[in-house]
């Protein structure tokens, strides 16, 4: 279980991993100290392992920088929940083994206690006593996520064939 951190629409990769920390990209622990700084400056220092990032439309728009989802994961975030995701960000999440869940995040408020059940495809909002369904990932992405991301997948199979 973890707590919901609410964000609005159009959270760009420049808000998640700002260009002013470009030089820290090969130092992920340091870069993680600035995760989502552009959107909520207090987030990086207060987020707890197992918490959730909960946002509106088009989360992760902008740059292809995989550092954005990576530092969200390194910060201990269990999953990112949004009404919709930008394409490259979504794919990056799955590749690094960070669940990116598309659901109606209007049903979640700041601080709600959430539980993610990937198998059943539901987010349980313990605070509100509600369950939110989410659609299954396309089979190829589901398989990559289940195997722990694309690096683990390729290490195991030496191929992309699924």
């Amino acid at each position, binding site marked *: 279980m973890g707590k919901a951190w609410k964000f609005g629409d*159009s959270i*760009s*990769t*420049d*808000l998640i991993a*700002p*260009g*002013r920390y*470009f*030089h*820290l*990209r*090969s*130092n992920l622990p340091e870069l993680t100290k600035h995760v989502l*700084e*552009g959107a909520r400056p207090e987030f990086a220092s207060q987020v707890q392992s197992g918490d959730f990032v909960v946002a509106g*439309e*088009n989360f992760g*728009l*902008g*740059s*292809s*920088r*995989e*550092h954005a989802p*990576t530092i969200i994961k390194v910060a201990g975030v269990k999953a990112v929940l949004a009404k*919709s995701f*930008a*394409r*490259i960000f979504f*794919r*990056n999440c799955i*590749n*690094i083994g960070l669940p990116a869940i598309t659901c109606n995040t209007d049903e979640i408020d700041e601080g709600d206690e959430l539980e993610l059940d990937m198998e059943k495809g539901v987010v349980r909002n313990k605070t509100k006593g509600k369950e939110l369904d989410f659609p299954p990932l*396309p*089979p*190829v992405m589901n398989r990559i996520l289940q195997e722990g*991301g*694309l*690096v683990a997948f*390729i*290490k195991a199979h*030496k*191929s*992309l*064939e*699924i």
Partner: protein
Amino acid sequence: MTGKTLSEKIIGEHCGREVKAGEVVIVNVDLSYVQDGTGPLTVRRMKEMGLEKAYNPKKTIFFLDHASPSPRMELSNDHELLRDFARKAGITLSDVGNGISHHNSLEKYACPGDIIVGADSHTCTNGAIGAFGTGMGSTDVAAAIALGKTWMKVPETYLVTVNGRLPKGVYSKDIILHLIGSISANGATYKALEFTGDTISDMSTAARSTIANMSVEAGAKAGLFTPDDETRNFLKAMGREEAFRELKSDEDAEFEKRIEINANELEPLIACPHLVDNVKKISEIGKVKVDEVFIGTSCNGRLEDLHIAASILKGHTINPNLRVIVTPASRRVYMEALRDGTIETFMDAGALVTASGCGACDGVHLGILGDGEVCLATQPRNFKGRMGDADSFIYLGNPAVAAATALTGEISDPREVM
């Protein structure tokens, strides 16, 4: 069976069978590249995968363009890591000073009908010559480099038809800003955009590349143009006419949506802070004082763009209350601008010209914005904090708007000075 879109044709050729939009397929990749912001992580991922060799080293490029030359020790070390790995793996290195990946790709490597994956979201710029270029993250590109393949969903296509003659002071930048403003920053997420019509046929490859480049700002996976005589002439000028091939959507291809734009009715447009789809007519934005004008980037850093700006600045001096930074997209553009006097025009006017590369666009160096500062840039993005301080403001416009603004010190309509 109905006809095929450009995307369906290109992707089908790369997986050895006919495909339709919506299918997930594994495709052969013709060209893979990374840049210095994403490349170090790609190298790390290749090592983690236990695959340290490139499947096709000659068609794998490491571009050092974002921090070019390096302004910090950490980045110098990243550059060394990329140079060293490239040397050992036989990968082609495009070192600092050679300029932006996507423009080097158009000049030297990309061919119509190719599938190109780059660890940079603006890899869709390659669509200007009919190559299916798409941006991915470091891990995806690591796999593509090592295996020569990637997986992708065949995108549905939106056909964008642009007819009419662009009025004075209005350029391809305004066409794509108009489109993004109309359909929104996620209006084409997961889709391919295909551009056609009289206005597009009459357009240079440089102007097309501005539109292809910003397709991702509407969420699109690719922004494609039909290779035509202009494409052939462009490739010929780059010394590689043999790369040309004809390829186009079938008459009866299925397009998920059709969008029409009348070029005659367009005005210079501005994307206001802090989102690219916050598009307004220049006549509607009021008085906006500017601290920095930035001309360049993968979106508007080609010779044609520099010519547009220089023609307005020629014989004038920039407003003393701002700085004007010009960053040519590639070494080739820089050299041509040097030879034809364009660089001299900028310098005479009081602008400064940097080494070619991505420049100030993503807040690494060469024009970082301070607290409260305002920039008018020809770049593709204006997200909050992108160019430096979290409380700075980025407005996007065409190169003529940039030059007019440079003269007055506030965002200005180029039609008044042309």
